[in-house]
């Protein structure tokens, strides 16, 4: 059944609350509300959308008639609006236009993501040696990664006296971006040990990982 509501003269949010209560009771399929200001119209349109109901607005002499009708299951929302200034005025802008450009637009290649200072779990010292061997082997294999990203205890590889210093330097000279997470460098108090241009942030790390063709995280 269609309920009629005269909400003229009521201040926001009263009109939208009264209309909502009618639908909450679940006795009405449609409500015809009379309101006298355009903010109420826009808010009733939002209510209709949240109820997955259709909403038709007719401008009368000095007021609006808003008809909200619960849609049948496969009926799409049909919202016509006599007051375009309040219509949802999003200019279309595609996501791809907004996505940040990765450092290298084309083939970004693989990225090595080191989240700890060892390769795998087990004896810590052995794990460190193993990681060193892994990186050396990778360097020699010719599968050059676009970047090596270090986070958490992974940034300890950058320590001044670290046995990893050389292999990381070699990667860098071969054109790989060798970067440590700034938050982690800060946390492990390694600011002195790491060159500023090799410190990156989580945003950049996410950009690399998102754009990588393959992420290797040993």
């Amino acid at each position, binding site marked *: 059944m269609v309920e009629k509501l005269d909400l003229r003269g009521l201040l926001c949010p*009263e009109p939208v609350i009264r209309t*909502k209560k009618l639908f909450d009771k679940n006795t009405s399929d449609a409500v015809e509300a009379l309101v006298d200001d355009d903010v109420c119209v826009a808010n009733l349109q939002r*209510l209709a*959308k*949240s109820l997955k109901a259709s909403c038709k607005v007719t401008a009368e002499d000095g007021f609006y008639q808003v008809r909200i009708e619960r849609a049948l299951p496969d009926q799409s929302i049909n919202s016509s609006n006599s007051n375009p200034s*309040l219509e949802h005025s999003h200019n279309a802008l595609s996501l791809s236009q907004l996505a940040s450009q990765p450092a290298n637009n084309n083939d970004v290649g693989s990225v090595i993501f080191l989240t700890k200072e060892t390769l795998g779990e087990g004896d810590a010292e052995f794990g460190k040696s193993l990681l060193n061997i892994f990186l050396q082997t990778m360097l020699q294999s010719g599968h050059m990664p676009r970047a090596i990203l270090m986070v958490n205890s992974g940034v300890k590889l950058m320590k001044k006296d670290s046995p990893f210093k050389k292999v990381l330097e070699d990667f860098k000279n071969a054109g790989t971006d060798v970067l440590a997470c700034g938050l982690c460098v800060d946390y492990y108090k390694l600011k002195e040990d790491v060159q500023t241009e090799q410190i990156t*942030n989580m945003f950049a790390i996410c950009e690399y990982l998102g754009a990588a063709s393959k992420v290797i995280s040993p």
Partner: protein
Amino acid sequence: MSSAESKKLTANIKAYGCAAKISSAELAQIVASLPSFESDNLLTGTKNFEDAAVYKMSDDLAIVSTIDFFPPLLDDPFMYGKIAAVNALSDVYAMGGKPLLALNVFCFPTCDYPLELAQQIIAGGAQAVREAGCLLVGGHSIQSTEPIYGLAVTGTVHPDKILMNAAARADDAILLCKPIGSGVSFLARKGGELSDTAWSALLESLCRLNGPCLEIAAKFDLHAATDITGFGLIGHLHEMAQASGLTARIASRQVPLLDEVEHCAEQGLVPAAAYANRNTYSKVCRFAESVPLALSDLMFDPQTSGGLLFSLAQSDAELALVDLQKSGWKASIIGKFIDGDAGVVEVF
């Protein structure tokens, strides 16, 4: 009980808090014919929409001057006074300054309300001023048809540490330090649609002085700052982007929201001033189609006692974020500034 005792503070109020602000389009018309006041010592003009005026006294001292007031946004007089004062003090922090002296600005209809209410309003304000380490040194009060309360605040700042709207740089991260949605919250509460839990979280957020937030953030190299108030997140972002000649790019899902506001906005509990902000700023913003209507409504929602918004290098922003969150700030990196059309706000 006399009618004076039974009347609620917000009985006749149409727009709450900063939603009572005159729209920026109307304001532009009002001030268009004002002569321009210039001085070498005046470090802020009016064209860059700064939060407060800054006047240089010497090479190491500038004064910050600002005023802010609004009609009641809730019925608890003490809380109203406190929020109004926290909101007024915020403009000094938004310039990078420290508040020193505050004056009460007070309009009150003594025929309609008991005097005790007036006492509580200014007591709430005084508490905020004390918490800020600032001195309440006087004020001015008059009769009026609706209560209005706020502060005129004078602060100080080192001339090299002023945080202008105009100094954001390309590739800066944008750090927002309080959740948004207070306008929607107040409307929803009035309609009985906001829970007590969400209501107390809202009041807690609005009573939070921005001073400690600035103190944490100032350990980093801040480029620009503002606070989010009546023109909504989009309006204030636009001002900073315009003044800095940049485009702001915002990830809508990263914007911190007050409890329950997204649901309330979806149901049409959107204040008139949010629609006014949308009308004013729709020309300068571009929303991706994927951004839900409720989120965009919230980004236009007028804020009262909103958070500070900083522009700083991404790495600094991440470090500052960790420190802020540790101290209980619901802060988030919501996007960045990029080279592009000045003043445009892109949201995806």
